[in-house]
């Protein structure tokens, strides 16, 4: 076994563990559903027919492969070579579509007739509603009341797509509470309903399955980058981290290379940096919580990163040193979003701007010396954030 494959992101071991993280911490009622999902996923993922079908929908409906854009101007300014993986160009405006197409196809294969989903920024909700419309499934999306206010555009999009958006009024009224509610509803409707979870969190097999559905980002980028860079692989691979799905999908394409992997969290929601070991939403990972184990609220300018947990595989990648996690502040994010818009003509999502902000700060320092080559995943487009930005600026 070479060093490269040793370093790769492998399938979780029995019980869905990545190192000591992961697992399946769910009520007994959900155990059969999780087990059935795991089996269905294993079956589908080794079925070339399923993969072909997914590839087809990704290509003809979601517009994959997404472009790889050299950020010419910003690269020149920063003294690095920056390549942007353009998930903002994917249908519905973010990488979330990659995952939902996979899960919706799987749900259909399992005979389910309904999807439920949790959403924060609304991008996953829109994506789930889209996949449901496409595959003739009903859809219910749970969304924190506070996020509903912040992301009104996406709420309306979900409604147009025929999904019911249910406001969640408990707890912090954001993504974590929407996730709780979706879990509750899943328990009660497990027969006909698939819980279409939006990130690499949740009980096994979700963290693994979602990473596999998102690895198309990294796999595509790996091929595309090889054509752009003399070295074939970039020095650094960077992505923003909420639950961690776009980062996991991106890292998956490069984990077996020598590239440094950097996940960028919001300073106000940095489970990797500020979290401690805990169990939330079905898996053991790092969590923002107090000494007694009450889960904290995350606070960032990006609704999609307002999540107190992180996918268990990231906790493992961080612990093992294979990936490094850093944080940026809301102010850095706003500056980065604007600078990218002006230099490259790309308005990215506030979430994605976290990754950009780190590159801008790190470029020219030991963290990212001049001459470095960087692949950055732009996880989504900024249209959804315009109203909020208008207030912030």
């Amino acid at each position, binding site marked *: 076994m070479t060093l490269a494959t040793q370093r790769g992101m492998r399938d979780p071991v029995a*019980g869905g563990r990545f190192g000591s993280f992961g697992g399946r911490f*769910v*009520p007994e009622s959900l*155990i059969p559903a999780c087990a059935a999902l795991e089996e269905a996923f294993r079956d589908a993922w080794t079925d070339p027919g399923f993969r072909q079908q997914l590839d087809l929908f990704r290509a003809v409906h979601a517009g994959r492969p997404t472009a790889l854009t050299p950020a010419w101007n910003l690269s020149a300014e920063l003294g690095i070579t920056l390549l942007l993986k353009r998930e903002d160009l994917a249908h519905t405006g973010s990488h979330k579509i990659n995952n939902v197409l996979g899960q919706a196809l799987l749900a259909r294969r399992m005979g389910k007739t309904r999807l439920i989903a949790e959403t924060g920024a609304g991008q996953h909700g829109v994506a789930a509603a889209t996949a449901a419309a496409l595959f003739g499934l009903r859809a219910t999306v749970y969304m924190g009341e506070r996020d509903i206010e912040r992301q009104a555009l996406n709420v309306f999009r979900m409604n147009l797509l025929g999904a019911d958006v249910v406001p969640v009024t408990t707890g912090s009224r954001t993504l974590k509470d929407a996730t709780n509610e979706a879990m*509750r509803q899943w328990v009660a409707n497990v*027969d006909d309903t698939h819980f279409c979870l939006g990130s690499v969190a949740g009980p096994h097999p979700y963290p693994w399955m979602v990473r596999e559905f998102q690895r198309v980002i990294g796999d595509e980028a790996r091929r595309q980058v090889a054509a752009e860079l003399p070295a074939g692989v970039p020095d650094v691979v960077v992505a923003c981290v909420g639950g961690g799905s776009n980062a996991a999908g991106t890292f998956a394409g490069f984990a077996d290379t020598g590239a440094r992997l950097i996940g960028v969290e919001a300073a106000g929601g940095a489970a990797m940096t500020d979290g401690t070991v805990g*169990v939330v939403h079905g898996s053991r990972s790092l969590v923002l919580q107090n000494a*007694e184990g009450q*889960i904290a609220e995350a606070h960032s300018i990006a609704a999609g990163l307002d999540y107190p947990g992180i996918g268990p595989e990231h906790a493992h990648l961080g612990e093992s040193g294979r990936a490094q996690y850093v944080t940026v502040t809301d102010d850095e994010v706003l500056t980065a979003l604007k600078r990218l818009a002006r230099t490259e003509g790309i308005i990215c999502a506030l979430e994605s701007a976290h990754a950009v902000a780190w590159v801008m700060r790190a470029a020219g320092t030991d963290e990212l010396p001049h001459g470095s080559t960087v692949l950055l995943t732009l996880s989504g487009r900024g249209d959804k954030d315009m109203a909020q930005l208008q207030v912030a600026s």
Partner: protein
Amino acid sequence: MTLRLGTGRPLLVPFLTGGVTAGWTDYLLAYQEAGADAIEVGLPFSDPMLDGTTIQQASDQALTRGATVDAILHELTAIRGRLRVPIIVMAYANLVLKVGIERLARAGVSGLIVSDLPLEESAELESAAAAAGIDMILLAAPVTPDDRLRQICHRSQGFVYAVSVMGVTGERTTLAPEAEALARRAKLLLAEPAASVFHAGSRDGADPVQRLPVLIGFGVSTPEQAAVAGRAGDGVVVGAALMRRVLDGASPADLRREVGALRAALDQGVSTATPYAEISGDRR
């Protein structure tokens, strides 16, 4: 300290969210007076994934009041002398992992139910619980298949918690039919001699005293439902129906009447054997 519940008459385990009001421990005493066989104390959690509206609210109310796990356990310790029935803590995994099972034991807790800790994840906690002398009560659900239910029945301590419905905690207008089926399956499996755990199918009616009781919980809301559940299983856990009254401002005396009515309904359903649960061992 281990928990042992008699099965002579249907068992009644009422639930209270710890710290829900300033004088929350008075409700525990009222439950005891009304004939509870044991009391379940829920630790309020920020993310009560398996709870319906009522218990979410109770949890929120407790946290908003400033209730902490530590304070709740202190208050439990304070009334330990007046509590004859065993206290069972119900909590989410994250709290238990943080607080540590020894701390529960020190507060005099006899049993522990962890909502989101299935068989696969519970081994570690089971040994810690054994070391601390706390019974781990496992939950079974209507969808739990027989082979898995058998494991649950044989690993559970104190009783087997049969979740009556596919759903979260909360009042329901009727007792779900799956509840009876599940309780019956569990009793059958519990009646198997331990050596024959791989041979399913021994008949019901094996000496109930020889086996762990099966309690039906989730959605048992009225005395009538309790009576039905008490016949199907060996007793009931009643949570949301009581918490709704507490949240509405009902006094401990009110709750004593509520629990008394449940007690009466259960007892009318079948003849009484042991009035209270027996606690083996000393009550540190």
